[in-house]
């Protein structure tokens, strides 16, 4: 589905260019949830921006279903952590979802049905006349999900979408996302710096090393049935393994941030 081949990303910076990604290889299969896990500043967002087509790689190639990615494509939709700025605050819930249908020229006759369907899926149909500012953080993220699903993309690219939510709301969002994923079979690339979140959601977890020159250092297959309970010994062991794996990189990232 998605393929990254030796992707390098260099940002112009003073005193010398900053190498964010240095040879990232990745393959994302149809219908899987791949979590990208790494310390903050390691280049997760950069990688996602490259996948989305917002940023061109400095070297290497990106393709989606065999076709090279040259820009934002209609088959890949990005989710942002800050829903407040990603949503259209002057449009109400229903109009936010309608935006994509309008610009994609979906026939008007289908709008009502599509909007109803997805608003119901994220449990926002009772709030369709509210504006984003009137919604809670979790509701705003659900609106982002509904708005994206409405244009029927094959891939969801999610950049720490639930990081700013409180723990309970985040758990609820995980359940919502997994349910939608089971129903729709979307391919999801989910970026997070939270090990528990990666374990809860992922089919596989890609571990990224601290920047500069970040790569995907390891890919972990999760052969555990969902829902996954952190109290379960197998899950807990995995959690500890990943934590140990990440520790040196987190230390490295911290050191760099302290400069």
């Amino acid at each position, binding site marked *: 589905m998605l393929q990254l081949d030796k992707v390098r990303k260099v940002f112009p910076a003073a005193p010398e260019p900053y190498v964010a990604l240095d040879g990232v290889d990745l393959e994302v299969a149809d219908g899987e949830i791949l979590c990208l896990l790494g310390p903050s500043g390691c280049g997760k967002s950069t990688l996602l921006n490259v996948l989305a087509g917002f940023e061109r790689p400095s070297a290497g190639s990106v393709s989606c279903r065999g076709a090279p990615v040259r820009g934002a494509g209609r088959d890949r939709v990005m989710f942002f952590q800050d829903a407040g700025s990603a949503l259209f605050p002057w*449009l109400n819930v229903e109009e936010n979802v309608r935006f994509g249908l309008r610009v994609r020229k979906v026939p008007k006759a289908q709008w009502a049905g599509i909007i109803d369907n997805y608003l119901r899926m994220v449990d926002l149909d009772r709030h369709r006349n509210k504006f*984003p500012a009137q919604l809670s953080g979790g509701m705003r993220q659900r609106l982002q999900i509904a708005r994206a699903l409405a244009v029927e993309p094959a891939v969801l690219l999610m950049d720490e979408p639930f990081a700013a939510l409180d723990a309970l709301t985040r758990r609820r969002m995980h359940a919502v996302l997994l349910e939608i994923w089971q129903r729709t079979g979307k391919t999801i690339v989910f970026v997070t710096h939270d090990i528990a979140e990666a374990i809860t959601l992922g089919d596989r977890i890609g571990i990224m090393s601290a920047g500069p020159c970040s790569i995907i250092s390891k890919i972990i297959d999760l052969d555990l049935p969902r829902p996954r309970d952190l109290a379960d010994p197998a899950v807990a062991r995995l959690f500890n393994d990943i934590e140990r794996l990440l520790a040196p990189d987190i230390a490295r990232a911290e050191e760099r941030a302290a400069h």
Partner: protein
Amino acid sequence: MRNFAAVPGRGVLLTAGSIAIAFLSWQVLSTFIFNPFLIPPPLEVIRTAIPMILSGEILADVSISMSRVLVGFAFGSLAAIVFGVLLGRLQLLHDLLDPIIELMRYLSPTAMIPIAVIWFGIGELSKYFLIFWGTFFIVLVNTIAGVWRAPIARQRAAECLGANQLQIFVLVVIPSAAPYIVTGMRVAMASSFMSIIPAEILAADSGIGYLLQKSSMLLQTNRIFVALLTICLLGFVFDRIFRFLVARTLARFMSFVAVT
């Protein structure tokens, strides 16, 4: 005992109280302490104002000044918004023109009066021009800032949803900039009220500024105070009207200013 902050109509009460106290102290000060010719007491001012209102004299001056403000403000805002969204979007054009704008914005409308008189005479055109001038730079700078601050995430979200560049610009960037544009317009409106007065003092034969100038020449301090009060009242009323109109027509674009 009830908290005073919770009393309904508290704002109105306070405003009325504040004005009443000001008038009272003014009356006392100008009667007993200051020379009433230099600072005429409020009752005297009101006595002067009534015939000026009844004869329609004030109204004529007010309407001519207001029409100058409105015409200059409308065209100035319009030009600044069109120009501003382009400059906000076209980096090269912006970088090219920004130094000039940065220098020119220090030329206040007042500084432009002498040349405006030479260019446009003392008729309406010179006043339109001066108000236009003052409005233009304020709204322009705010519009550019608003376009720049349109969140990148919002533009990218729109792109993912299938919007093309023109749609992103019209349907996302400009609405995102709306609060900045409106704020700029409000500041420009206030500044127009300030610049119309010197413009009319120096280069007009009608309007509130001209009334001030004429009364000053004739040492009619009562009439000067009537004109000054009129300016206060007009500025206040216009700002309220502007806010009311914005709230009525643009509420959905303004409501999110507090939200990130």
